[in-house]
């Protein structure tokens, strides 16, 4: 541990020296008597200063948890020598809050608690306020001797990372992709073949299996007919997260809503045996090639934890995204606050390339305080008009777009998009 004298030691030494000097110079023995207690404290305290050899380890009760859930942090303190006053503090990120008090302990280690086999254990309950990969730094120690003349400081233990998964939004339905892939899944394909869902009937041709023959229709029409079924295939779903900018008020922002909805969408599509990919399009480009299964879902959620808004002025287009991340015939679900023109440009480019695209606008206007003075109101109006123009550009390109804000059910934008897509199909080409 790093030892240093405290300001108190210097002050007491100066007081004693000044008192004795004044007593000798002025011939006032009473001054010497006044500072005698301070001198006594120095004489008693200085020889007793020794390194207490304190070590502390903080252990998290879990390395993965859900947003809003509590986690126990156990702090174990060991010392070679007794410590009169010991402060143990655990540096926590702002997303982690200690319940029932500060994340610091004030301890006294007595003679009975000293030794390598003895350890004082204290448990703190932490509450995870926000998702993310949260780092708990090494424990900081500050020990003082009885007299407060010396202080020892140290940082012990190792950095730990607590992965807090976002609490997914509640979803009851998912978007149906326009086109499916070749692997079997739970989506009804437009193509006909072996499946369960009835699609149509057609005349029997040599090679058809007898079990497919529709006997009622065959008897009515006088020639054999067979049933046709829809294939059951999976789909490729790419979740596109716009992380160029976000609007935030206090603990919640558009990025938090985005991550919760993406998490729910990924879980829903993986449950339907779809392949799910992820593109984090922002100051830092992050991607995850499409995959399926619970392990891949964990990968998607883990990748989401690293999503953050990084300021960047570099113009970025679709050409920087690896081609394998965007497979042909994939459905792209984009979540964007429509705050950055680069993301809108990329979405229009995706549409122009023929991707089945749907946009959920995570509404940033809910996070903007209401304008009060005329200048702010004018700026607010211009901003709203600007956003309307961006929405209109996407809608003109045939991209279904729906707004979603805090406190609204997550099914709402998906239902709106599904209705938009049905309306598009009805419009003659």
């Amino acid at each position: 541990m790093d030892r240093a004298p405290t300001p108190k030691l210097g002050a007491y030494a100066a007081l004693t020296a000044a008192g004795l000097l004044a007593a000798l110079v002025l011939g006032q023995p009473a001054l010497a008597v006044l500072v005698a207690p301070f001198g006594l404290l120095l004489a008693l305290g200085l020889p007793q200063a020794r390194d207490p050899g304190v070590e502390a380890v903080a252990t998290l009760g879990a390395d993965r948890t859900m947003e809003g859930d509590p986690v126990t942090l156990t702090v174990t303190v060991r010392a070679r020598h007794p410590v009169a006053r010991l402060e143990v503090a655990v540096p926590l990120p702002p997303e982690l809050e200690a319940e029932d008090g500060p994340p610091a302990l004030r301890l006294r280690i007595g003679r009975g608690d000293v030794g390598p086999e003895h350890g004082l254990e204290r448990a703190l309950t932490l509450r995870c306020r926000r998702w993310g990969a949260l780092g708990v730094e090494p424990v900081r120690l500050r020990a003082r001797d009885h007299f407060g003349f010396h202080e020892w400081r140290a940082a012990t233990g190792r950095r730990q990372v607590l992965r807090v998964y976002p609490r997914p939004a509640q979803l009851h339905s998912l978007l149906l992709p326009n086109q499916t892939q070749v692997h079997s899944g739970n989506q009804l394909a437009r193509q006909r073949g072996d499946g369960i869902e009835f699609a149509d009937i057609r005349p029997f041709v040599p090679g058809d299996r007898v079990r497919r023959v529709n006997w009622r229709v065959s008897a009515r029409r006088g020639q054999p007919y067979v049933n046709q079924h829809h294939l059951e295939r999976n789909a490729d779903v790419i979740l596109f997260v716009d992380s160029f900018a976000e609007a935030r008020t206090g603990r919640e922002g558009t990025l938090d809503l985005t991550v919760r909805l993406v998490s729910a969408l990924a879980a829903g599509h993986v449950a339907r045996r779809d392949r799910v990919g992820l593109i984090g399009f922002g100051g830092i480009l992050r991607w995850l090639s499409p995959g399926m299964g619970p392990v891949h879902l964990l990968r998607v959620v883990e990748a989401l934890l690293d999503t953050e808004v990084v300021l960047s002025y570099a113009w970025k287009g679709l050409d920087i995204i690896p081609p394998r991340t965007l497979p042909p015939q994939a459905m792209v679900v984009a979540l964007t606050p429509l705050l950055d023109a680069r993301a809108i440009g990329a979405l229009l480019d995706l549409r122009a390339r023929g991707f089945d695209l749907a946009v959920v606008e995570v509404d940033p206007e809910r996070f903007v305080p209401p304008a009060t003075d005329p200048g702010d109101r004018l700026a607010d109006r211009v901003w709203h008009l600007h956003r309307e123009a961006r929405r209109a550009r996407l809608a003109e390109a045939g991209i279904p777009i729906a707004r979603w804000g805090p406190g609204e059910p997550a099914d709402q934008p998906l239902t709106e998009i599904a209705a938009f897509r049905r309306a598009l199909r009805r419009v003659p080409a």
Partner: protein
Amino acid sequence: MGLVAAMAGALAWLGPAPALRVEVAVGLAVATVGLALGLWLGVAAAGPMAVALVGAAFAVAAAHHGVLLTAAAPLFGGGLLLAAELADWSLDLRRPARGRGAVHERHAIWLVAVTGLGTALGVVLTLAMAVPLAGMAAAVLGLVGLVGGLGLVAWLAGTGRVPRGPDLPRAARRSR
């Protein structure tokens, strides 16, 4: 707590030494205001500075009235030590932490013991100074103490007073 201790020390002294009452009362009032301000701002040197101020007021009053030694001096010294220690403790307690009752109890007992010891030492010195030869010995002892104190101050000035290790995180530090 420091303010309470300062008041306690003042009351302890003001009774038996009426000759020095006015000057020391003024010094005490100024020191109390300074101590209150220093504690509110979180200045670590507030306690010792207030003590120095009261000590200076005592020296001026004693010189003015020609009082060489008074029986109240040990009590006054003990009160000053208690004031400085309590001021230091109050600053220490302002750092938010989950404390255990035993920590504070032990420190309170230690504080009482140290104050008692300091006062007892003052009484012994006061009694010793009444004897002519012992007074000379006390002067030599004071000289040794002076040299030791100055040496300590010089050593601290040379090494620097700021601890170099990692400090406690912001959340665990004192908040005003």
